[in-house]
């Protein structure tokens, strides 16, 4: 039987399958953070149980931490309690923890890969839906609820039924100004927010092969936004080189040995998927969303759909303060957020810095740039990116989830329009009544400079005639 990469990884991790029932599925790596773990530890303690495999767990504080003055105590008492409970739980159970103040703290899906804890062929879970990020390394990685966090703490396993398999192939070279974020927003707009429910996705084709690991992480990160359980990309030389550069990844002979095994982690040439999708890279332009779920996205040069029968659309546009058939290009914006586990890595900051260098942020735009981790922050400072931002009038903040879910003080005020590199534009996601437009870091920084929805120069030039015909 020919197998997909997903099948191979699945089979390797099945401990046992119940007759006509789920499989006991082994988890190699468990990431935890302060928001979805306290109840799980409590459950374990109430039952008088120990953590089964503490060495396979990595913890950090990211969801509700401040992004300014992190050296001071957390002001919000509820956030402070969650963080101190995480500290206590890690100490008590001997779990490796990167707290605020540690040189490796950051968003859980940023630090795992960059420190070398995420490796090809692993199964990875975390009480956070964007765990799919780690699929970029050829892993089965997915988000779980708190009951399941407790199960993994207690047994290093979950009870799972096998999802269906989908392959999304994108081939060819991306146009200038089109980033991996645009590719995934394009895919989600095509499939819709529930279009991959019940599936695990493999991304394949020359476009993904040409991407860096950071770009691949951006793609896999958003798999959940079309309902997929997760998304993965077969590991290759790009993956192995990335791992060789990490702090705790295998090195030397150990790495060579592992690479031999990892190289076999591929879909067999005639393996069958339950569903296949094919897209030409050249058809993709910079993308933005106009509605209140990530599937409501368009090419930035197109207009918002205008189906008067569509109640969902009407409800979304009402919340967003937008009109059917409206063009978004040129519309003024209030906030720009560059950050989150989707786009807060060093390459994202470099893209923003390159664009903004020698330019100024528009006076009436508030722009937050939030690196994904202390290591990203350190690298940005070493490269002088923080200075470039500062000269443009933008202050680089400290690592955390920040305005991605606005559990800390980084909230977008009610009614304000924010161009965000994060992954969700749900009502209230960035603060009560906040209006979110998802975009790539290049589109986001262009908006910060122009004070209106704008994008890469190359894309603007390419679409000049379309822009003119619309403004007529």
């Amino acid at each position, binding site marked *: 039987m020919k197998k997909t990469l997903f099948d191979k990884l699945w089979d390797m991790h099945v401990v046992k399958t119940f007759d*006509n029932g789920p499989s006991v599925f082994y988890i190699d790596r468990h990431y935890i953070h302060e928001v979805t773990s306290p109840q799980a530890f409590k459950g374990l303690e109430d039952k008088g149980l120990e953590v089964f495999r503490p060495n396979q767990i990595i913890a950090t504080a990211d969801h509700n931490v401040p992004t300014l003055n992190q050296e001071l105590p957390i002001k919000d008492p509820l956030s402070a309690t969650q963080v101190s409970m995480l500290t206590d739980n890690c100490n008590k159970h001997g779990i490796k923890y990167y707290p605020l103040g540690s040189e490796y703290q950051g968003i859980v899906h940023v630090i795992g890969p960059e420190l070398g804890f995420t490796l090809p062929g692993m199964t990875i879970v975390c009480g956070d839906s964007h765990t799919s990020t780690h699929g970029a390394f050829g892993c089965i990685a997915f*988000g779980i609820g708190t009951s399941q966090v407790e199960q993994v703490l*207690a047994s290093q*396993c979950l009870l799972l039924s096998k999802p269906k398999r989908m392959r999304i192939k994108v081939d060819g070279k991306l146009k200038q100004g089109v980033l991996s974020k645009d590719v995934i927003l394009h895919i989600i707009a095509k499939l819709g927010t*529930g279009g991959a429910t*019940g599936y695990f996705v493999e991304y394949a084709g020359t476009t993904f092969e040409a991407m860096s690991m950071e770009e691949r992480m951006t793609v896999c990160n958003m798999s959940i936004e079309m309902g997929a359980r997760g998304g993965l990309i077969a590991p290759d030389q790009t993956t192995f080189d990335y791992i060789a550069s990490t702090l705790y990844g295998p090195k030397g002979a150990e790495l060579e040995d592992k690479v031999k095994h990892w190289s076999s982690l591929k879909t067999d040439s005639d393996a069958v998927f339950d569903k296949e999708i094919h897209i030409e890279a050249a058809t993709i332009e910079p993308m933005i969303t106009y509605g209140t*779920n990530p599937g409501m996205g368009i090419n930035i040069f197109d207009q918002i759909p205008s189906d008067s029968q569509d109640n969902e659309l009407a409800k979304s546009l009402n919340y967003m303060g937008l009109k059917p058939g409206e063009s978004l290009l040129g519309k003024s914006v209030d906030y720009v957020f560059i950050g989150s586990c989707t786009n807060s890595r060093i390459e994202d900051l470099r893209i923003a810095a390159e664009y903004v260098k020698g330019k100024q942020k528009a006076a009436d735009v508030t722009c937050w740039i939030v690196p994904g981790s202390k290591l990203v922050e350190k690298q940005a400072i070493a490269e002088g990116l923080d200075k470039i931002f500062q000269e443009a009038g933008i202050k680089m903040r400290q690592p955390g989830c920040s305005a991605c879910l606005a559990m800390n003080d980084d909230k977008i005020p009610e009614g304000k329009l924010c161009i965000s590199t994060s992954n*969700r534009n749900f*009502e209230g996601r960035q603060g009560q*009544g906040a209006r979110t437009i998802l975009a790539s870091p290049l589109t986001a920084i262009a908006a910060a400079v122009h004070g209106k929805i704008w994008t890469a120069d190359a894309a603007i030039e390419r679409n000049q005639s379309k822009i003119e015909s619309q403004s007529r």
Partner: protein
Amino acid sequence: MEKINKIQSSGVPLPIEHVDTDQIIPARFLKSTSKEGFGENLFRDWRYNGSNANPDFVLNDSKYSGNILVAGHNFGCGSSREHAAWAIHDYGFRAVVSSEFADIFKGNAMNNGLLPIEVSSAFLQELTEAIITNPSTSISISLEDQTIAFDDKDYQFDIDGFKKKCLLEGKVEFDYLIDMRDTIKEYEQNRTF
């Protein structure tokens, strides 16, 4: 977990598609370290304008009551926060009906004694309309028989056999896994990769 089998109740209609977990329970209410009390903030930003109840939202409409939430397509998409399932259960619902559930939400619901019932779009529409026309429409659910019925209509729904057993017996997955720990150790020792 309490056992679940038969539910007979009127229903609360929420015919909105793609209701995400940020609507079910906004992130600012996730700071609790216990599982209780989330029902108070269920659908918080739809339910209240500031601190006043929004009279247009269905949970504030005294016409509707009961412990069955009749939702729209792709219910529970978005985050993995189990707080969404806790909030719905804590508010008093015991079943949610939709034509599709997001995977993680569905799992979280079943792990907390909240029954997600997946029906066809046509049945969902008929049920929603029936409740809106007559809010006291009685809905009967039998998990054992996998049926949901109202007026003279019924529907046979699918549910994972193992999850069904767990819900009927009030047993949680956790207990199965704990019993498996020796087998799991054996697996760890025999791994070749």
